[in-house]
């Protein structure tokens, strides 16, 4: 780790005083990475890329956006029509927001499948859930900024949730609004916070990466690396693999931006906000639909709010709910079935969240909500005790070499 390893004298001079090159060298060359990572390990770097795209396009959009109830909608249309390539910047921002969530959801399910939340990576996982929460807040406030019908009514519905809190609820809502309804002060503070929060996310991402580098990546087998034979350097092996994922990601993002830019949005948001006219169905952005379904599944407002936040809060204590010593679902045959049931359950909740809260949809939402909590609070703790897991390989290199031999 001495500066002497760099041959360039300028690099050596700088690194002696500010060890940035040592840090880079550590990350790229010394940092040991399990040699058996599959493509499910691409979504962390893709989430990081999404954050960078969001911040860059967002800063450019803010240059032409006006945070005022009378001008916000019009300033967005000006971006779409008169600002040079404004339509492109805005469509990239809109669609990358959706892709950010797709990537993060896959990243979370990867962690669930391979037990990446288990010791000693509990804090790494918890920081990830913090990032997810910050993302949700940021995305919610960003959706309000164009001041369309869904912006306004989404903001009204979501901020009103806090009124369910006993005693202080109403005061909290007034405080959040900066007045007695969603109005100009609300839009101004949402813009301010929407600009701030991505940088908070970036800060927590740094902590997330520091925590990651403490023990390194988990891997598809879920056993610890036992030495040099189990690892390879990050560069060039995983930089190249990440670039493959980036290429795929950018290709799909381009298809969305250029050919279906509004497919993941709601047409009502091209109608200027009108406090006097409620849309037929108020729905949040698609990535909130599973939580929206949980909210509406409960007949009691406070209960719904508690359950909705509980659905995320439960992820914080997940490392202590699933106590099975085996990390990867590959060696947990029963857990694997329940994992896929949870995956289907989450998709079902997303579907139900987009449906009107009536008839069969309410019943189905309740079943799906119950299953979500059952999975974490009952099934996982029980599996930790009763599941008989398959024997684990002795090391990462053993099964890797075994499959290579078998393939030959």
């Amino acid at each position: 780790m001495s500066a002497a390893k760099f041959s360039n004298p300028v690099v050596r001079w700088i690194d002696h005083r500010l060890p940035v090159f040592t840090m880079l060298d550590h990350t790229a060359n010394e940092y040991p990475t399990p040699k058996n990572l599959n493509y499910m390990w691409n979504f962390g770097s893709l989430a990081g890329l999404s954050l960078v795209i969001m911040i860059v396009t967002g800063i450019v959009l803010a240059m032409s956006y006006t945070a005022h109830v009378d001008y916000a909608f019009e300033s967005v249309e000006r971006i779409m029509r008169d600002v040079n390539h404004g339509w492109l910047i805005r469509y990239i921002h809109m669609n990358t927001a959706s892709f950010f969530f797709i990537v993060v959801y896959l990243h979370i399910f990867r962690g669930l499948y391979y037990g990446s939340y288990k010791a000693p990576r509990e804090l790494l996982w918890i920081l990830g859930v913090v990032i997810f929460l910050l993302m949700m807040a940021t995305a919610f406030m960003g959706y309000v900024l164009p001041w369309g019908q869904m912006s306004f009514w989404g903001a009204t519905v979501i901020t009103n949730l806090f009124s369910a809190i006993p005693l202080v609820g109403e005061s909290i809502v007034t405080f959040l609004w900066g007045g007695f309804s969603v109005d100009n002060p609300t839009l101004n503070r949402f813009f301010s916070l929407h600009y701030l929060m991505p940088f908070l996310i970036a800060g927590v991402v740094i902590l997330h990466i520091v925590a990651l580098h403490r023990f390194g990546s988990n891997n598809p087998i879920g056993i610890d690396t036992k030495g040099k034979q189990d690892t390879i350097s990050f560069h060039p092996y995983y930089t190249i693999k990440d670039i493959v994922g980036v290429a795929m990601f950018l290709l799909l993002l381009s298809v969305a931006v250029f050919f279906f830019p509004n497919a993941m949005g709601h047409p009502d948001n091209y109608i200027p906000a009108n406090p006097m006219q409620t849309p037929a169905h108020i729905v949040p952005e698609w990535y909130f639909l599973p939580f929206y379904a949980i909210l509406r599944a409960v007949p009691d407002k406070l209960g719904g709010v508690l359950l909705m936040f509980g659905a995320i809060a439960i992820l914080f204590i997940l490392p202590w709910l699933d106590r099975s010593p085996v990390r990867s679902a590959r060696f947990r045959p029963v857990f694997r079935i329940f994992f896929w049931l949870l995956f289907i359950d989450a998709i079902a909740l997303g579907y139900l969240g987009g449906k009107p809260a009536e008839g069969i949809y309410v019943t189905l939402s309740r079943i799906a909500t119950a299953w979500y909590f059952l999975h974490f609070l009952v099934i996982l703790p029980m599996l930790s005790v009763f599941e008989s897991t398959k024997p684990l390989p002795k090391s990462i290199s053993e099964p890797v070499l075994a499959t290579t031999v078998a393939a030959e």
Partner: protein
Amino acid sequence: MMLKLIFTTIISAISVLGMSGTATAAGGGDVTLLKKDWSFSGIFGHYDKASMQRGFQVYLEVCAGCHSIEYMSFRNLADLGYNEAEIKAIAAEYEVQDGPDEDGEMFMRPARPADRMPSPYRNDNEARANNNGALPPDLSLIAKARAHGPDYLYSLLVGYGDAPEGVDVPDGMYYNNAYSGNLIAMPQPIYGDDVEYSDGTSTNAEALSADVTHFLMWAAEPKLEVRKRIGVATVFFP
């Protein structure tokens, strides 16, 4: 397995959205959506200038009496194939308020290409007062502000008809096959031969409706052509 997972997730995400969109469109009653083959749909989609010019004529002669198109400026008509002199001439037919002048007075002057299209009413209240209490929506974004935008607009324009047995149509309301709930406050705007085209193409109700829809799609998404062109170059670049 991973790729399949990504695709499944994306497709299910999109289908969830699609369904939520449909749920919004269906507000009750029987709604018929006619699917048309628009030149601007598909990844190689482009606008048909002749159709947009005709549609602009329909907008001016049929819609503009009640509906504003406030995000459109006269200069934008260059996209429809008009040259500078023609745009100046079209703009000059309108009077817009300007000022204050040296004496502090507001004054009227002929519109210039940089001006927005003037609205038919001074404000929403005047618009309501002239339309039985209903507010004719601004049309700048209408093709994006409704689910299945262009198909919906076309279906709405040709969707007027007699109410089926047992459906009560109140005074000042009209029966429409495409409108959510089937009762719409806008009287049938297009009957066929409402305008006279100089290029000799058909002026039946279907043709007029298709042309004005084409124009409105352009008004809502003026950068569609350049977007798709860059998209093809980005996604299919060898």
